[in-house]
């Protein structure tokens, strides 16, 4: 029983982190059809922003969260304005943008290394303390992470499904040209999506850094897992990504317990390989299937 709860807690915590990391990625892919290889760095920048400004603006979580989200949104918007915008209509957008954002990731990571050094700083913006559930201790920060993930994902769900802005994003995602014929300024929609996804990444970065530490390469691992989740869920499927994140978090925790820690991630990757080979549209996906 203890063990079951322990695995559940680990799985949900992992799941929440993965969900935060992958929802933004899915949103960008779903709307722009682009793999944002710099998404991990968006997270890292969010985490460092909260870390650096917390000294001035206090250590309260909501403030830190806002800073992280603002920083993520800013870098998302800048990425769009300075890089993505120029490539959207060009040939080979899909592959070119992967290369360019990968370059951006290398660049930003090195800039962070030069500014902050490699020291693994601890994230001051977090909640201390533990609670007990049936004899198992659970850190409050884990609870916060799960809560933030659920709130943010619900907020995104509400935004996409229930607002005019969300409808515009979805319409643009489904058919850019038709959306333009409705009078939608799709370049602006893309910009907003990049900002929104950046904000989500920033929040994810803050949450991840509160469980681990800050380091310039901290985004690499969550990004990989976010890719896994997005593929398994079906690329661009925001809901699927949220659900899959929690499911895969639980799967990873179970595999780690049953078969050994080192098999956790390889099993997830194997899942991606199987999904891509047998069901390329993902478990929940319908749209944007590139098959020949």
């Amino acid at each position, binding site marked *: 029983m203890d063990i079951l709860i322990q695995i559940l807690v680990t799985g949900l915590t992992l799941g929440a982190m993965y969900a935060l990391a992958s929802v933004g990625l899915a949103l960008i892919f779903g709307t722009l059809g682009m*793999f944002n290889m710099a998404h991990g760095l968006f997270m890292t920048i969010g985490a460092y922003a909260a870390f650096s400004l917390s000294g001035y603006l206090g250590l309260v979580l909501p403030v830190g969260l806002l800073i992280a989200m603002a920083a993520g949104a800013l870098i998302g918007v800048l990425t769009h304005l300075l*890089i993505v915008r*120029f*490539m959207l209509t*060009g*040939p*080979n957008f*899909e*592959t*070119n*943008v*992967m*290369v*360019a954002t*990968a*370059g*951006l*990731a*290398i*660049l*930003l*990571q*090195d*800039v962070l*290394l030069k500014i902050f050094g490699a020291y693994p700083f601890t994230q001051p913006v977090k909640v201390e303390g533990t609670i007990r559930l049936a004899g198992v201790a659970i850190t409050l920060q884990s609870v916060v992470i799960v809560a933030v993930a659920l709130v943010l994902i619900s907020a995104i769900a509400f935004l996409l499904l229930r607002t005019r802005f969300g409808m515009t994003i979805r319409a643009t995602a489904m058919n850019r040209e038709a959306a333009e014929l409705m009078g939608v300024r799709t370049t602006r929609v893309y910009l907003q999506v990049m900002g929104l996804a950046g904000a989500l990444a920033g929040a994810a970065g803050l949450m991840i850094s509160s469980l681990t530490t800050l380091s310039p390469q901290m985004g*690499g691992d969550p990004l*990989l897992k976010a*890719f*896994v989740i997005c*593929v398994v869920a079906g690329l661009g499927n925001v809901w699927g990504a949220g659900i899959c994140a929690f499911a895969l978090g639980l799967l990873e925790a179970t595999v780690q317990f049953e078969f050994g820690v*080192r098999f956790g*991630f*390889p099993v997830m*990757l*194997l899942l*991606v*390989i199987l999904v*891509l*080979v047998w069901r*390329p549209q993902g478990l929940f996906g319908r749209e944007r299937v*590139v*098959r*020949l």
Partner: protein
Amino acid sequence: MGNNNLRRHLLVAALIALAFAVLPLFVTERYFLGEVIIFLIWSIVAANWNLLMGHAGVFSLAQMLFFATGAYGVAVATQFAGLSIWLAIPVAALAATLLALIIGAACLRLSGAYVALLTYAIAEMIHILIVTDTACFRQVGGSCLQLFGGARGFSRFEDFGFRPLLKADWILGNYYVVWAVFAFTIFALVVVIHGRLGLGFRAIRDNVGYAGSRGINRRKIQLIAFGISAFLTGLAGAVYAGHFRFAGPSLFEFSSLMFVLAMVIVGGLGSTWGPLIGAAAIMTVVEITKELGDARAIVLGLALILFVLFLPKGLAGSLERLQRATGLSRKPGPEASTSKDPA
């Protein structure tokens, strides 16, 4: 036209191979020769990636996995199977080919970014499994050696054997082994790119539906591309392992992948000689940044962004355009080379 092209490029290949054959007459410094060896190897890897990505239109991120397979193949074959390195090299290249055919078959139903994801997932899974393996396969002295070398990889296995033979000039022996693989590769690539196979590549890359209606089997062509590219890349990995006496997981880390990708992109995707130009350019710039302090990552990152944005055809493309512009209009300078093509 195709035949003429083939002959012209074969001539270029011969000149390049000749130039590198006589280079050690002028350069004796071990570090510089070592860098040229590495340049030759990265050129092979980049050129083969370009074959797969630029010519056959398969955006595979498993390139360094093929390279590592060649290197690991040599390490495992010499260390565990007791094979001579000269036998181990072709065996390792064949192992890379076999792996590529399996991965290629798995990729057949996918295209574009999906291929990138699948190939990357495969490479990453193998990477993690190797790196986290701590079970001793064999005890070597006081350390244990895992079946695939673990996080450390293999080192100090049998090399080409030039040290006892050439003494202080051992590196010349290594140089000519690598040169031989390089020369073989560039001739092979010219024949592939400008021969019948290349025609098929271009047909499927440019228009899949059209190529299909012309009876060109996309799956078969892409599998062939995977196979050739991986064989030559594996060969490069094998001689790399022989040169450094090393095969380890860092060979197929993400950062290594990006390093070679930068060469392909900067050189020019889909060109013939672009990857060589790109490898030279990137290595030179990285070398210069070492003098200026540590700017390697910034240079690589910027190169990837700027070239994709502003020079998607790479240095090879710009060179060609410059050549055409000056050749046609006899009017050198930027005005001549800017075309007004809105596409």
